[in-house]
């Protein structure tokens, strides 16, 4: 087990180093996030709808878009560098491959979210400082869920025709439970309501993470091996 985690970490660092070298993926994801937030802000009539009502949905739609963008970028990188084929020749445990990819993707998406969140607070004039710890924890839990599924599905579509179109289409149903849960909990946090009200949603999010990270780790070898 420890060896798998160690290999995963090494693989993740390789992916992240590659990303940091070019920086284009990161830059485009950040610009995209800022753009989406700006558009949402101009799209609404501030006198008609209170920011607080829409804010949770806007935040999470933005994060979801950014996540899909990141997953696509990861897959592009893969295609360009043929890195996956090279790795598959080596005897590394496939589960380490998956966990490494997952971790790299989480770092990437997490960074985008870390920049996006203060931007969001700024544009929509929402005070998040007082709920930052639970909010950060929620963002982490929800993000793990959809990045876990996204990482596996992007490995699935990598050798498929129309892959860039296929990935969001396949991913959409899988995003809904964590997304809806995240929005509900975020709404409670923003309006200062106790978290006990949303214990059901929190449990859903945690269960989702558990089930899908396990399932993805289990099925990743089947996906990449001939």
């Amino acid at each position: 087990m420890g060896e798998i985690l160690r290999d995963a970490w090494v693989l993740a660092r390789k992916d992240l180093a590659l990303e940091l070298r070019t920086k284009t993926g990161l830059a485009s994801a950040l610009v995209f996030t800022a753009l989406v937030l700006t558009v949402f802000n101009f799209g609404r009539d501030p006198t008609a709808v209170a920011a607080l009502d829409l804010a949770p949905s806007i935040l999470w739609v933005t994060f979801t878009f950014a996540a899909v963008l990141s997953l696509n970028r990861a897959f592009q990188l893969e295609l360009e560098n043929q890195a996956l084929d090279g790795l598959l020749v080596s005897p590394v445990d496939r589960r380490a491959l998956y966990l490494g990819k997952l971790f790299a993707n989480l770092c990437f998406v997490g960074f985008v979210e870390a920049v996006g969140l203060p931007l969001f607070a700024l544009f929509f004039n929402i005070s998040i400082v007082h709920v930052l710890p639970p909010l950060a924890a929620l963002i982490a839990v929800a993000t793990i869920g959809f990045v876990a599924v996204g990482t596996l599905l992007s490995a699935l579509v990598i050798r498929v025709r129309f892959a860039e179109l296929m990935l969001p289409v396949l991913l959409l149903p899988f995003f809904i439970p964590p997304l809806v849960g995240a929005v509900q909990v975020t709404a409670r946090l923003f309006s200062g309501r106790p978290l006990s009200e949303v214990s059901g949603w929190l449990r859903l999010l945690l269960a989702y993470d558990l089930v899908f990270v396990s399932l993805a780790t289990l099925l990743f070898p089947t996906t990449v091996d001939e």
Partner: protein
Amino acid sequence: MTLKTRGRAITLLGLVFLAGVYVRAIWFTPVERLQGGAQKIFYVHVPAAWSTMLAFSLVGLASILYLLMKDERYDRFAAASAEVGTVFACVMLTTGPLWAKPIWGTWWTWDARLTSTLFLFFLFIGYLLLRGAIPEAGTRARYSAVLGIFGAALVPFIHLTVYLFRTLHPQPIVLKPSAPSLPGDMLATLLFSFFTFTILYVGFVTQRYALGRGDSHVG
């Protein structure tokens, strides 16, 4: 009798029964007092949902069995069940809003059955699209099986999401929907319809499976 012929016979039987269901539902089943004629949609809508669920569960099961046994017949069955399930999902998703509008006042309600079937529909479409994009049979079978299992794992989460959402947002009711305990005549019609839709599922899948067997690229 070949599989194709048997499938055709079963389908034909199912269609005859369907005509029977229609006749019985329209003329020989009492009209529900509160909902009026629209309530009769129930006899087609609910069994269609059942067939969709059945189709999807079997895709999930066949996917697991394929990965364990590597027998391509499971893959062929999964492909057939996915296509047939999509058809039933379309029946459910078209009759649903037509029932919802007079009863609930809106074309769409995020109730458990409609929402779950909508998601099954998306999963089916994704599954069929994936299959269509992979020409090599072995890879296609493997990838489809992975997606099938993932989809099956998602379903309980969809149910949970809808349940949690609904306890927050109870539905406004314009007319009270039919009570769970149905009077005898209505129950008989419903059961007959369930039976018919199951026969149709079997007939459709048998034919579709036979088609998949003839040409290995059709899958």
